């Protein structure tokens, strides 16, 4: 039960699902390699690694990650292979994808 409950909070979560293919893709987030499951959204791949914020607000430098989950709120914006302002909840990971967040430097939320 406890391993099940961990799902999504650590490790390449979706790959353990029944019916999922076992192979994984490697992406990079702010230069750091991460493993993800094919078909996962970027947002879910980051959250699976414990990364819940990848952007800071302009005024208050408050951390932001997923909120609406369906492309409405634009809280989850990041840069994908050089394309700015992409929604992490909508874009599927693929092999070699380079992802950059925009958290302010004092921000430890990517750990």
């Amino acid at each position: 039960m406890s391993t099940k409950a961990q799902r999504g909070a650590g490790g390449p979560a979706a790959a353990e699902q029944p019916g999922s293919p076992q192979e994984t893709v490697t992406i990079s987030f702010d230069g750091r390699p991460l493993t993800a499951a094919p078909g996962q959204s970027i947002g879910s791949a980051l959250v699976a690694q414990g990364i819940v914020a990848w952007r800071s607000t302009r005024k208050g430098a408050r951390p932001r990650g997923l909120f609406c989950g369906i492309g409405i709120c634009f809280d989850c914006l990041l840069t994908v292979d050089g394309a700015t302002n992409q929604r992490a909840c909508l874009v599927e990971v693929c092999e070699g994808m380079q992802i950059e967040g925009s958290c302010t430097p004092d921000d430890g939320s990517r750990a």
Partner: protein
Amino acid sequence: MNDTTTGRTERADVAIVGAGPAGLAAAVAAAESGAAVVLVDAAAQPGGQFWRHRPEGIVQERDGRGHHGWKTYLDLRARFDAGRERGQITYLPGLQVWMAEKDDAGFTLRTTPTVAGPVGGPAVAARRLILSPGGYDRQLPVPGWDLPGVMAAGGIQAFLKGNGSLPGRRFVIAGTGPFLLPVAAGIAEAGGQVVAVLESSSPAAWLPHLGAAAGVPEKALEGAEYAAVFARHRIPYRTRNVVTEVLGSGSRGSSRVTAVRSAKVDAKGKVRPGTERGYADVDVVGFGWGFTPQMELPLSLGAETRLDADGSLVGVVNERQESSVPGLFLAGEVTGVGGAKLAVLEGLAAGAAAAVRDDAARAAPGLHAMARHRRFAEAMHRAHPVPAGWQEWLTPATVVCRCEEVTAGQITEAREMLEARDARTIKSFTRAGMGWCQGRVCGFAAACLGQGPAAPPSAESLSSAARRPLAAPVGIGELAALEPSDS
């Protein structure tokens, strides 16, 4: 050069926006009535919110585990695919409609890719248009709701259905309405722990509406199914309870949800002193206060609107799902939030009606069933209102507009000092609703705050909030391409 500039246009008898339960049904019905159909959908594959599923290229979800009405989906999907094979349905996934226009010949849609790509989207032109863009979770701000780890309840559901995994470990689900039940049940069945479901209303609120509920017996069955899941996983379901604050820890930039404070409320949503309690070790909080239909496209075409029983702005339609704009049909959440079954029935009716060449109205199918579902939806809305007193849960520092970081204090100040009452005036004074999401997330709350605690927001205020020049953000290039040019 993108496709907008090269002027590629897809033409059809009937254009449809949205491939959710309503749009999918509409496409099938229109094609089976002989029309040529173009369907545009922002998502990468059909299903909408209700039948969102894992990417088909990776996982085939044949058994429909975790879905409801999956048989209906498979049936519609088979007919949809058959329509595509016959060449009658052109399916354009991964494109967002950012503008809709009407002229004598019919309707033109401008599209842009959902995910950045090398080319823009084609234009779509059709004599008739069916809009079935669905909606999104309605939100009420509360202190701490902008911490990472706070999500829309439907967003958690979408995460689970789309990825097959959970966005955290220990969840509190809060807000109002029966939709909180499938969200919590889905989390528990996927191995997450639901610490509590906090429902602001009370089961007694259903008593005056039992007649309407009895008209849709399958809802009772669904309810029993959730009750079983709640019992199996020991999920506490606490009525007349609300989250009063979401707490986080970590330094300012790195903070995320760690705990939740709640309290019991009276029927008006007023906190009962002494009933506060805390939930520790929580990493995801899901909020859902019903849904807000996506009204920008119907509004931009001039469709008549009304306030529905849940306080949402929705489109007015006749028995054939036709709006006040001739040739413009609406189906699904945009005519009133009523669930996927009703959305399918409305889609079938709209598709059949839009495909008919002359205006000789043929009787719309499914009228009785639609009436039953609408009565149930109205009962649901009345039993699960947005609590009148919700504004008292805020502090002046609570962020209301997440994009522009406008606080409750700034909005009430604009109301008191500057007489800003409707959402549009509040927006111009405070910038609430001016950011990336164009007020989709804060529009309802800002309209409530402008109105003050005494009354819910008016249709005028909500429609001023929902009028958006662009239904999706587009690049300057796509805007410029609208100008007639020789290129």
